[in-house]
């Protein structure tokens, strides 16, 4: 899947990845996609809750090789 911006949040514990994603999304236009890579297992639940509360769309959430990859589309 294509994306418009990427955020590397590996090695950081939540909520810092959420906060950095929030800032990165603010710089996007509606419909654009941010890719985030994180390693904190807590980020899975946190990005779900974040999208629910902000109305942005969690397009995908996947795990590969100990890292979690999220695609978020700005509403």
């Amino acid at each position, binding site marked *: 899947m294509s994306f418009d911006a990427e955020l590397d949040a590996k090695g950081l514990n939540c*909520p810092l990845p959420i906060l950095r994603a929030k800032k990165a999304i603010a710089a996007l236009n509606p419909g654009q996609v941010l890719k985030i890579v994180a390693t904190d297992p807590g980020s899975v639940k*946190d990005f779900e*809750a974040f999208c629910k509360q902000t109305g942005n769309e969690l397009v995908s959430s996947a795990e590969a090789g100990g890292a979690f990859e999220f695609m978020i589309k700005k509403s």
Partner: protein
Amino acid sequence: MSKRLSAEERRDSIIEVAKRLFAEKGFHGVSIDEIVKQVGVSPSILYRHFSSKEALYEAVLHEFSATRESYVETVVDDDTCFETVLRGMTRVFVNSIVSQPELLKMEMHSQLEGNSAAQDFFINRWKSFTDYIEYNLAELQNQGKIKPVNVQAAALIYQGMVRELLLLKCLQKTDRLNNKSIDELVDQMISLFMQMIY
């Protein structure tokens, strides 16, 4: 007639007793015999669920990991200035620990016992704070908004202040500051910390 517990209920009851005993006496202070006596089962039943005391201890830590604090609420608001988010996170964290003081007691024991699995577990729980503080102080410093500071030392010092408040409110039977709620003390602490860095 007493009700027979399911395997899952039995496992939960062992974890509950183990949690209480590990919190009171630390890993080395508790024997499997003492745990099974308090649960009211034979050692063979305990070993059916947990292969060793170490495995049981890790299962207790795993139970605690399910209660890890979520800080999403504190960062989705419009106001994401350093002080506001730090206050929100600290309140979530201290109230979570006050509601489960066994967590703090096990952490204190693990510090003295040098149990590496436990130390990693607790360091990871604090890491939400230290990551947040280090990243933001570095950013504020680059923008010239705060005094030059060693961000890692500042994060550790903040962690130490939070821990001392928790020790006071969760473990110490003393009158010291007992007219102040934990939230009031958190506000006081944040205000001092901000004076230090700005």
